[in-house]
């Protein structure tokens, strides 16, 4: 977690949509001790190309090595760091244990953040939130005094505006 002192960067990698391409990238990051915060992969409008979005916390030299070492991989078509103006979104699911008395307070938090309550049972509820990673981080801070049972984030997916 020491890397957290460095700013967060979002790396977008366009790769050939082949077997094992994600393993190649993950293996290279692991071998060179590059720490991945989150990783998301999906097809693009070109079915032959997959986009892999990786978020990292790294100093400038390490970030440069990450890009250059990724570029060396045969199936990588393009790799770049998304600029600060880019559109970055993440999805969160969070399950909170609660008795019905706490429900109004949780509804308030959900309202402020535009989160949806997608499941409700007598003992717990599940909320869904989409937004910038910072927004998700902020949202999660609201639950310090609650009984969070489970949580899951998709990792960042991102596009440049132009």
């Amino acid at each position, binding site marked *: 977690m020491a890397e957290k002192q460095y700013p967060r960067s979002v790396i977008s990698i366009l790769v050939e949509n082949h*077997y*094992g391409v994600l*393993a*190649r990238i993950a*293996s*290279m990051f692991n*071998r060179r001790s590059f720490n991945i915060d989150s990783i998301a992969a999906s097809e693009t409008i070109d079915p032959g190309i997959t986009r892999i979005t990786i978020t990292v916390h790294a100093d400038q*030299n390490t970030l*440069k*090595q990450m890009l*250059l*070492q990724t*570029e*060396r*991989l*045969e*199936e990588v078509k393009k790799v770049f760091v998304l600029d600060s103006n880019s559109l970055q979104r993440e999805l969160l699911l969070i399950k909170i244990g609660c008795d019905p008395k706490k429900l109004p307070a949780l509804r308030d938090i959900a309202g402020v953040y535009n989160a949806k309550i997608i499941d409700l049972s007598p003992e717990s509820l599940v909320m869904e939130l989409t937004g910038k990673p910072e927004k998700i981080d902020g949202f999660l801070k609201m639950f310090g005094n609650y009984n969070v049972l489970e949580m899951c984030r998709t990792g960042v997916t991102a596009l440049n505006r132009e």
Partner: protein
Amino acid sequence: MKLTGSQIFVEVLVEQGVDTLFGYPGGAVLNLYDELYKNQDRIHHYMSAHEQGASHAADGYARATGKTGVVLATSGPGATNLVTGIATAYMDSVPVVAFTGNVGTAGLGKDSFQEAYIEGITMPITKHNYTVRHVEELADIMREAFRIAQSGRKGPVLVDIPKDITAASCEFTPAEPVQPSVPQEYDEQAVKKAAEMLNQAKRPIIYFGGGVILSRADEELKSVMNRADIPAVWTLMAKGTLEDDDPLNLGLIGMHGSFVSNKAIDTADVVLAVGTRFSDRVALNPKKFAKDAKIIQFDIDASEVDKNVAVDLSVVGDAKVVLKALLEDLKETRHEEWKEDIARWKAADYRPSDSDERLKPHQILRTICDLSGDDAIYVTDVGQHQMWAAQYLTHVKPRHFLTSGGLGTMGYGYGAAIGAQIAKGNAQRVVHLTGDGSFHMNLNEAVTAVSYDLPVITVIFNNQVLGMVRQWQTLLYGKRYSSTDPHRKTNYVKLAEGFGAKGWHCETPEEFEKAFREALENNGPSWIECVIEKDEKVLPMIPAGATIEDIILADGKEAE
């Protein structure tokens, strides 16, 4: 025309100019071997004792010729036995294509007999690798493999072929052999800036590595050195580039480099690094490497820039192309004062003392060079003998010194020597230098040298111990010789004879010279065991992480 996968395999090899293949058969590659049997007139297959030996042979073949080395192994253990050879080639940027058989596609992932996920295993030690999943892909994947191995920064590629692919058939369209692409682009402004920096330098040094040999840039390098009067130091991977008597040649740099090389880098005001990667055996302390210098780096691989040592200026491109461009703006200069300093350091450098009674490593190597002629290829294993070879072999040409630099693979030598001998034919003198530690790892390849009547001369520097590790234990671990003194009782002469080779045992310079002369006349493989002292050291030595200030120039025995 419709061909089976095995027929396509042979056709594409021939198409790509492959006439030599190293390998070892097995269940998953039976179809391929059946096809090789029918095509013996077009492709010569050399069978090793162990797949590792075949992988080093393909590597030695590639290093000696510049062509792509090819190795073939069966699935499972056959494939995993290639791993050390592939990693060796990867670390030293050697173009090799490895083919492995695998179980049929239906059996993949089912833990079938002799199944190993070699694609996953070799992912971090290849430039790229493939599993062929449809016979229709086979020809183009093979072509891609040859292209990638020879393009840009060279290296190994692995193609895994499941057994059913070798039996299935499809339409085959012949193609032209792929031409390796040498990048012609470079940043012209940066090259001009580099020339300017060198033109103004008072104490310039060129530090170069294997990239100069891989791109065949030795002539351009010498032109740069001579025009601007720049002394040069070289890494293990670049031995043989400069003439021994060239006053601008300062020798090997790094942990066991010359005093003058390390001192010159430490004092230089501008360092031009060409085709080299500031490894931890050269830039022993990356923060203090060339501490007073502006560093310029020329490399074909952008990821090498600033990787280990931060540089002031970089040009990404082929060494030959970029050095040629540099020459255009480089002025004729002389650096008399700088060369006087260097001459002084050269005079103060470490020199081993001769002996008439017992065998000394540098004298053994001197005799070998005197008797082998100027065209010999030298292949080493890893350890003290390797460093002595780098320091003391003379009259070595580019591509004539084959050694595992990056991975430091003990056991590399015999296979690589066999590959080089096969590549160049039996008229070529190939001398394999090894230690008793390294040799025991893969001496089984003697059977290969015997089977194919290869006149490889193996010189074993036998100090009875793992000398390099022992040297560290002597200097840094209070002489606690943990597992470096195995008390082996190998009789090399009898063992050589047992394999069908010829052996000699030598204890004096006179005996060695006589044995080597006899070995030169022997048509088959020769082993010459040289008994040397346990405590012979490789000097100079700068310990890992240290600087020129910490260089050890005298044998610790005297300080006892």
